[in-house]
């Protein structure tokens, strides 16, 4: 069995920071990689060492396999954790690492190739008796063939990137006339995100519930599940709120879903941490379909960690080192309820448009049962080149109602200034009657966003606060005195107020 002393984390942002935190707890040194604009990013500061691989474009940095292998050799890193996104599910990375004698903390290359390609995975699962959504079993570039398949499946159809994940390269097509343009967009987005533009079609289920099962498999044939997560709340096909357990799943359904996931993992010959995504049909009670295997650590893994008390990154490292799973299925327990909200750099009031810029102030909430996984701090730049995820807020409580109340409280305490984020919308979503009642589906965010706009009633307070801040800045500068004097209702003075003058343009 191996014992790692140094691990390279081939990612950026919150997931790189999260992985490095566990590595430090395990006494393992971490190596960051970065691009030029990320030289001072939080993940670089969190690591023990850094190798800057190249320019802003992911292809010359976070997707540069040769650069990563070279960085491992230079620093003496014995293993690579890929995080999620970037190269996490690209079999070329573990292949290149293996040739260099470096361990990949994730599934073997052949497993990634099998399950990472969605159409191959669909065939594999059908053969194993796992229910799949009607659709194509092979990707196609031919618009005529796509049109014929769409016609057979019946509109609306969903275009998906065969290499995809995270909603990238996905388009719903409701009418044959829209197929060509949607195909072009999906292919171009898939190509930009995954370096592979191949796409396929499947039936578009109307507002299903998205429920997934976390699995863990070691290299000794043991496969266990860590229960389910519900991730039905999505915008632009990307998850925004996740929770565990699912309010839609009772004991009997949980048994069926988790057994299906274990069957799927075994069929794929899976090793390491993975997720079997399922769609629960709202039309037919208890019917669910295999969606895909996510052969990586998921963004939303913290809700599973909160309810099981396990550290998935620690377990991933152990499995990659050749250790057997330290527990059997019967020893995995679940306690309470956890909800995660993703804090993206985007503006929900204008169609979730990206909002790159500078995080001027970040002050996450604290208190019992809260966890904050962040990739930025006050002063961090948010570049246009990468995923918009800045941080994740996770609330745990003994039951769902208490977790909802805790999340609403925590979001109200969340301060992030300088870039737009969905915090205010998240309060609206989590407070909604539908969310509180657990009536979730993949179209719910869109429904709840319609008719929502940021509140305007606090404008007077906002304006007053800015004027007060400005006047005090000037007052402090002109008075220049100290001591707790109080003039005309204004306690004064305070410390140097720096860039407070709104009109003066700061320092």
């Amino acid at each position, binding site marked *: 069995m191996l014992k790692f002393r140094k691990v390279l984390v081939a990612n950026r942002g919150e997931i790189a920071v999260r992985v490095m935190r566990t590595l430090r707890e395990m006494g393992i040194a971490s190596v960051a990689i970065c691009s030029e604009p990320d030289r001072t990013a939080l993940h670089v500061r969190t690591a023990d060492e850094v190798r800057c691989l190249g320019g802003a474009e992911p292809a010359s940095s976070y997707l540069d396999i040769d650069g990563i292998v070279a960085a491992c050799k230079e620093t003496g890193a014995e293993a690579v954790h890929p995080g999620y996104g970037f190269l996490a599910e690209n079999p070329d990375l573990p292949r290149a690492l293996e040739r260099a004698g470096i361990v990949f903390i994730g599934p073997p290359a052949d497993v990634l190739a099998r399950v990472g390609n969605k159409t191959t995975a669909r065939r594999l699962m059908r053969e194993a008796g796992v229910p799949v959504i009607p659709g194509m079993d092979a990707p196609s570039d031919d618009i005529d063939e796509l049109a014929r398949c769409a016609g057979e499946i019946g509109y609306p159809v969903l275009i998906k990137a065969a290499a995809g994940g995270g909603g990238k390269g996905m388009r719903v097509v409701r009418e044959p006339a829209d197929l060509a343009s949607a195909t072009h967009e999906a292919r171009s987005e898939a190509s930009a995100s995954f370096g592979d533009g191949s796409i396929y079609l499947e039936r578009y289920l109307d507002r299903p519930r998205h429920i997934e099962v976390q699995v863990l498999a070691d290299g000794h044939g043991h496969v266990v599940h860590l229960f389910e997560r519900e991730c039905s709340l999505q915008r632009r096909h990307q998850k925004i709120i996740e929770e565990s357990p699912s309010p839609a799943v009772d004991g009997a359904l949980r048994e069926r879903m988790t057994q299906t996931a274990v069957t799927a993992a075994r069929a794929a010959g899976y090793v390491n941490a993975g997720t079997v995504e399922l769609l629960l049909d709202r039309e037919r009670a208890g019917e669910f379909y295999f969606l895909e295997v996510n052969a990586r650590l998921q963004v939303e893994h913290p809700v599973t960690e909160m309810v099981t008390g396990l550290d998935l990154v620690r377990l991933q490292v152990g499995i990659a080192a050749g250790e057997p799973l330290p527990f059997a299925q019967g020893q995995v327990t679940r306690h309470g309820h956890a909800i995660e909200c993703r804090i993206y750099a985007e503006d929900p009031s204008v169609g979730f448009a990206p909002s790159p810029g500078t995080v001027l102030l970040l002050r996450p909430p604290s208190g019992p049962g809260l966890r904050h996984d962040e990739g930025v701090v006050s002063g961090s730049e948010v570049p246009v080149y990468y995923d918009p995820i800045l941080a994740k807020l996770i609330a745990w409580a003994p039951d769902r109602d208490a977790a909802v109340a805790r999340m609403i409280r925590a979001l109200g305490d969340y301060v992030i200034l300088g870039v737009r984020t969905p915090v205010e919308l998240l309060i609206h979503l989590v407070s909604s009657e539908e969310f509180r009642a657990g009536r979730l589906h993949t179209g719910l965010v869109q429904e709840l966003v319609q008719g929502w706009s940021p509140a*305007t009633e606090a404008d007077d307070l906002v*304006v007053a606060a800015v004027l007060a801040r400005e006047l005090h800045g000037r007052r402090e500068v002109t008075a220049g005195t100290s001591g707790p004097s109080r003039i005309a209702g204004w306690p004064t003075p305070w410390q140097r107020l720096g860039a407070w003058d709104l009109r003066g343009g700061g320092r």
Partner: protein
Amino acid sequence: MDRKLTVDGREHTASMSVGSSRVTIDGREHEIEVLEAGAHHIDLVFDGKRVVVFAASGRGRRETWVGAGGRARLVAEVERRARGGGPGGAAARLVTPMFPAVVVKVLVEKGQTVARGAALITVSAMKMEMTLAAPHAGVVKAINTKEGANVNPGDNLVEIEEPEAQEGSDE
């Protein structure tokens, strides 16, 4: 002195003077008392209610971000020269991204005739792609960017000359 400020684009007229505990906003009077302040917060009583407001200014910019209760607002000074550029003005006819982005592909060439709504340029930010369309029919007069370039809201990426006969016809 009256000040014109926008809160996320909504314009307000406000006045307050040094030494006063009264602020007037769009004619509404409010009582304000600052209890304590730090580099990034003000602890204040506003109309009898205590509230902590967080604030941060971008370096060298005439704008301040304000946060309270899970909400964040961008407050900006209304600049005199910027007034009057409402919908239908020059800004509405720009081919410009709605967020800072990188140019992925230029889809037209100089001299090409384009219809209103024709795809001109694809930009990408944070892996989300957006195609900018022609605001009116005409001939491409100039392309002011290239693939791989960083572009910002307000940049006019493609200039389209309007044929005289079409003037005003698609307004």
